[in-house]
């Protein structure tokens, strides 16, 4: 029993080290003097910690602009998709309309289709609409998501019908019922969904890479990938860029961890 306990805990520390070491190394290198990391044996900690790389990064690149682009886009994507998805998800769960169940089955079937299949025609459509190189163009694929509608519907099914009926008898309109009964009941799943959407938008790479070719408009991942191709030798500078990109999402995750993980489980049981 004692040996088993040591074994379990030792492997857990080992796997934990594997998971966290790259992130710790990133922070440490971002604080080193330029050129310091390119030595053998590789230094684990900065000899004289400095914020110089961050200063250089913001002074010589448009990092502040990229950060703002990412922040605005992720916030908009989060707000827009959560609003659209919650309205549709509630309607599919609690309101009767013709063709509802057939429509929902078609939506679920569409989950199989990888988004990349739509990307080339979507690019041409955006070109026609004049959305290339615009925030709107980046946002277009994330306005509503099948997964989000599905998640809200699952959650909304649990709202008791009697509650809604009672409100109808009292003369409340459908919009009022949605706002004052459904929305409060759905708040936990909204937090989850908003977080998912924020993180997905913040980390998205392929679509922004395609739709944005203007340097000014670029999001952090696109800008970072470009910088990484130009500045192969500047390890310390690139790690500072990685810290700037990762810090917001890691902080967000730590804050809403519970919602995030329970939402992940609800979404994975598709039945």
């Amino acid at each position, binding site marked *: 029993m004692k040996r088993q306990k040591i074994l379990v805990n030792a492997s857990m520390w080992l796997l934990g080290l594997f998971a966290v070491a790259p992130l710790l190394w990133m922070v440490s290198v971002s604080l080193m003097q330029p050129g310091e990391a390119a030595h053998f044996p*590789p230094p684990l900690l900065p000899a004289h910690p400095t914020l110089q790389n961050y200063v250089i990064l913001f002074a010589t690149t448009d990092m502040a602009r990229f950060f703002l682009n990412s922040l605005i886009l992720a916030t908009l994507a989060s707000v827009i998709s959560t609003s659209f998805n919650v309205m549709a998800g509630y309607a599919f769960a609690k309101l009767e309309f013709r063709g509802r169940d057939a429509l929902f089955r078609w939506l679920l079937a569409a989950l199989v289709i990888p988004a990349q299949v739509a*990307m080339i025609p979507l690019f041409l459509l955006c070109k026609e609409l004049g959305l290339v190189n615009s925030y709107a163009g980046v946002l277009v694929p994330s306005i509503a998501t099948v997964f989000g509608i599905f998640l809200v519907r699952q959650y909304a099914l649990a709202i008791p019908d009697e509650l809604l009926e009672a409100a109808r008898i009292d003369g409340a309109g459908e919009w009022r019922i949605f706002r004052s009964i459904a929305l409060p009941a759905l708040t936990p799943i909204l937090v989850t969904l908003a977080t998912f959407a924020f993180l997905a938008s913040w980390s998205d790479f392929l679509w922004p890479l395609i739709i944005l070719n203007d340097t000014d408009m670029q999001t952090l*991942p696109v800008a970072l*990938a470009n910088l990484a191709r130009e500045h192969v030798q500047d390890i310390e500078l690139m790690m500072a860029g990685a810290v700037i*990109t990762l810090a917001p999402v890691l902080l967000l*995750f730590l804050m809403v961890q519970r919602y995030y993980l329970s939402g*992940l489980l609800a979404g994975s049981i598709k039945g």
Partner: protein
Amino acid sequence: MKRNAAAWMLAAPALFALGLFFFLPIAAALLLSFTDFDLYALADLGNLRFVGLGNYLTLLRTPLFGKALGNTIEFVVIGVPLSIATSLGAALMINSRLARFKPLFRTIFFAPVVTTIVAVAVIWRYLFNTQFGLINWALGLIGLGPVNWLGDPHWAMPAIVIFAVWKNFGYNMIILLAGLQAIPDELYEAARIDGAGPAAQFRHVTMPALAPVMLVVSILTMAAYFQLFAEPYVMTQGGPVQSTTSILYLMFTQGFEFWNLGYATAVAFVLFAILFALTLVQLRLSRRWSDR
């Protein structure tokens, strides 16, 4: 009647957006893949020609497509079992009564999942550095290496697999952990009374109970791994000698560097066909499972 109208008002915005920006492009993609849409057609639609299955036939004759398909399959075949084994190991540890600091480790194991893939790919590119990388340094301590991870065609894909395992194992861990916690204690109790040790309990209680979850997790992970793109884009640019060019990497370069959009759409449809087949397999298997 009023309720019907209200329902449509609520559902319409999302359905309209999905129709215009997802379903319409999908239908257009199918048509596009039968044309020679390229830079000339982009300038003037009059240059567009219908080529039937031409793009798909060209794919079959292009060695690079076979290579990209092979590379992607290599990534899936090595990466998926390795990822799931790591996830299962992590889930078992977190579920173990002997383990300490479980909430902390659960957070640590999951953290790579929420990271931005481009940023962590940049980190790992340096960790894999032949001269100054932490990985070769650690291998040197136990007398191995140095390995030219990202510069050697034999090692580049394994390097990307290691990175993908690190990035993703926390996700399936959470799902498997929920599966483990759903196994009733009485089953283990009964097995213990029958004299089963930890290994026998794992084989005869844990694995059978976890099998349906494992199936879903495997198929979903395979589907996700077939969509390999950002890792080779940042870490290897599809090289060395195209050893990490994936299906989507090929689609991106053909579509948005050479502007062969018809051809690139055909590439995307091959990916779609693979994922569709995977889903059919999953449905068939899980139906057989529930029949039992």
